[in-house]
Structure formats: structure tokens, C-alpha cells
């Protein structure tokens, strides 16, 4: 029996990165200090923007690596290419959109600003909205298989 194209350890890493990104992403907004979460023992770092921003970028790099490697394997697989289920298509779209808006936001802070200063708000709002969408999807259909014929 051939090994699955996408091994379990890679899927686990993706889930860990996504959960970490959701946490540190929320940390980009001033809520953990307001709502006492950063007061809990061991969680004070959640109220430190320097730390959460750095972690969000590190996890973002990990997620982008994992997602692009899925995409490249999937495209290169030829006749072995698995078929995406409806849940799979949603997952690809949502992960793709959150990563894309995230990467564009990173570039915006470098010297390749793709959107004008007065449009950065739409980029931020989109990133936030897609992240919320991903969270909603994960809760509603997170256990559904992404590719047909396999678990």
C-alpha cells in the first residue's frame, strides 16, 4: 500500500501552526490584557505585542511552508492526484486566503507595499475576516476529510 501523499505528521504540524496563529493573531489585538487572560500565571507573554508578533510571524512562516508544500505535491502528483471533497475545497480556500493576506501584510511592512496607505485597513480586515471564517469552519466541519477516498 502506498504511503498517503500527505503524511499525518505534516497534517498535525499544520493544525498546531494554525492554532498557534489563531492565538498569537488574537494577541495582535488589545484584548488579552483587557480580559485578564495575560494575568493568568504563565500567560503574561500574551499581553506582550513584541512576543506575540514575533511568534505570529514564525508560525506564519511554518504555515506557509506547509501549505505551499501541500500545493506543490498536489500539483506534481499527476495521475495520483487526490480529489478534493467540498470540505477540502473550503479548507484550501480559507487557508490560502489567510496565508495570502498575511504574506501581503508582511510585504507591506517591507519595501514592497502592494496596497496604498489608505487601503491597508481592507487588508487587515480581510485577514481578520478570513481568520474568523477559518475558525468557524474548523468548528463546524473541521473533522471532515479534505481528500476523497481516504481518511
Amino acid at each position, binding site marked *: 500500500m*502506498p*504511503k498517503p*501523499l500527505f503524511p499525518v*505528521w505534516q497534517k498535525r504540524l499544520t493544525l498546531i501552526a494554525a492554532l498557534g496563529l489563531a492565538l498569537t493573531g488574537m494577541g*495582535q*489585538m*488589545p*484584548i488579552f490584557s*483587557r*480580559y*485578564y487572560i495575560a494575568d493568568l500565571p504563565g500567560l503574561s507573554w500574551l499581553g506582550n*505585542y*513584541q512576543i506575540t*508578533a*514575533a511568534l505570529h*510571524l*514564525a508560525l*506564519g*512562516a*511554518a504555515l*506557509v*511552508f*506547509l*501549505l*505551499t*508544500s*501541500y*500545493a*506543490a*505535491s*498536489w*500539483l*506534481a*502528483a*499527476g495521475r*495520483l492526484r487526490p480529489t478534493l471533497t467540498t470540505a477540502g475545497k473550503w479548507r484550501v480556500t480559507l487557508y490560502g486566503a489567510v496565508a495570502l493576506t*498575511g*504574506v501581503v501584510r*508582511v*510585504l507591506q*511592512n*517591507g*519595501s*514592497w507595499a502592494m496596497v496604498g*496607505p*489608505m487601503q*491597508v*485597513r*481592507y*487588508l*487587515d*480586515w480581510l485577514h*481578520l475576516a478570513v481568520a474568523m471564517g477559518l475558525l468557524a469552519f474548523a468548528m463546524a466541519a473541521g473533522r471532515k476529510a479534505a481528500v476523497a477516498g481516504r481518511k
Partner: protein
Amino acid sequence: MNRRAFLKSLGTAVAAAPVAAPLLARDAAAASGEQLATLFDLSKCVGCGACVAGCREAHAADYPNPQKPFPKMYPSRVKAEDFSDKREVDDRLTPYNWLFIQTATVTRNGKAISLNIPRRCMHCVHPPCAELCPWGSAVRHDDGAVVIDANICLGGSKCRDVCPWHIPQRQTGVGLYLDLMPAFAGNGVMYKCDRCHGRVAAGGKPACIEACPNDVQTIGPRKQIIAAAHDLARQTGGFIYGETENGGTNTLYVSPIPFEELHAALQTGPGNPGLQAAADVMGKEKNLATAVLLAPFAGIAAGILRVANRARKAAKEDDHA
């Protein structure tokens, strides 16, 4: 493909580094030729406050007019910040006072000398207030002016927390948060010097520059202003602040007295920034940002390697069959 091959693909990312690096170049001069900077010749400032008055007049219409009482905010630790009854305060930064004069007194050869230092937002080249604003309300315009849009700012004050000088000042009871969930998120609007973005865009000069009787401040292209600051420092044996602080700003001060001494002589506090050596806040994230841009190269290489390895293995198994 196994984990080892996966790691190998990281080598690809290193090979791709020359592609990604320029995209994150942080050299301010390279970033754009059009950024404007200002130069303060502190030896000329007499502390008359004409610039402060000029700023307040030019921006009177931009100041907040909060409705009272403020909506109650939860949890109770969230405190309102209210300067609407103290609009006349002009010895610190407030939502109604974006520029103030600091005075530092130091001893030189047994004599006390005082230096007046007009203080406002530094307009950083890589402003953490803007680059970390999660809502897109604080931005840096192409001319280098860093501006907070009072129409959408929610007043969470992250910009003040991450600014090395804690410049932006909050007024509760105004802004977009009132239309969302005022009890649970947001706390007003953050205000600071916008370097007269509107006036400058219309071809004018910042009001504080026009108001000054002593020509303390000049504005011009960043390169020229830096050169002028160095000339002035060389001619007068002076010192420069703002060129490298926080990784570079578009506000340069030239002083006859070292800034460490001035800083030590200041009483700093809320709305009263120091002149400390400020580390580059966004520069600390640069390596991580580079990693984000290299990740797709490594990922694509890893994905293709995996499929290639599977094909090779499958071919081998066929041979054995």
C-alpha cells in the same frame, strides 16, 4: 518523502534569499526618494511656544468632541482617558496638544544652561505604531508622514504601547468604537502629530514651521535633511538624535549638548517622552519576516521532492517485482 528530505528543501530557501531580501530592505534611503524629514536646530529654539500655538490653531478642527457621559466599559479595569476638560494643557502631549516644549537644564563648566526641545511624533521610517496596528488606522504615507485616521481608530492604544516614545494620546468617548461594541472593545481614538499631512499634500508647510520666528525647523527630502544635520553638527560640534533611533526616523534634532545628558535632565512620564537611545523595534522582526518570504520557496521544493521520491521508490518496487 521523509523528514530528512523535507529539511533538505530548506536549503532551497537559503538559495532563494537574494530574491526575498530586497523585498524587505529596510534602508530608508532605498525605500523611497520622496520621504520628507524635518530638522530641529535646538540651539536656535527660545521656547516661545509659537509653534505649539500654531499647531493648536491649525488643528483645532481635528480635535475630539466627545459625548458625555461615556458608555460604560467592561471589565471595570478599563479606564476612560479624558482630556476634554483639560484642552488648555500645553506642557505635555494630549489629544488636544500634539506638540509641546520640553526644557532640559544641564551644567556646563559650572554654568547652568537650558535647552528647549519641541517634542512631537518622530515620524519613524519603520513606525511600529503603523506596522503593528491591527486595524489599519495608523499608516505611513509615501512622504514619510505617519498618520492615525481618527475616523476608524478604535483607541486600543497598541500604537502607544509599541512606540518607543509612547507618543499617541487617547481620548475616550469618540470614534468608531461607539458604533460597534463600546462596552467590550475599543476605548476612543488615538491622537498625535500628523506632520500636517493635509497642508503638506496641498503644497504647504507644517504649521509649526511657519509659526516659528527663529527658523528652528526645516523640512525637505530625507537625504538632504540628513546631510544638513551632519553639516550643522560638524560646524557646531553638535550631536544628532533621530537619525538612527528606532532604526531611523524622519525627525532629526541637532543639539550642542549630548542627548544622554539631555535625557538624564528630563522628567519623563505620560505624554512626556525621553531622548533615550531607542532600539529598532521593527528591526527585531526582520529575520522572521524574511523567513515568511522564503517559506514558499522551501515549501514548493519540499512538495516536489516528495512526489519525485515517491515516483523513484515506486519505480524501484516495480524493478523488484
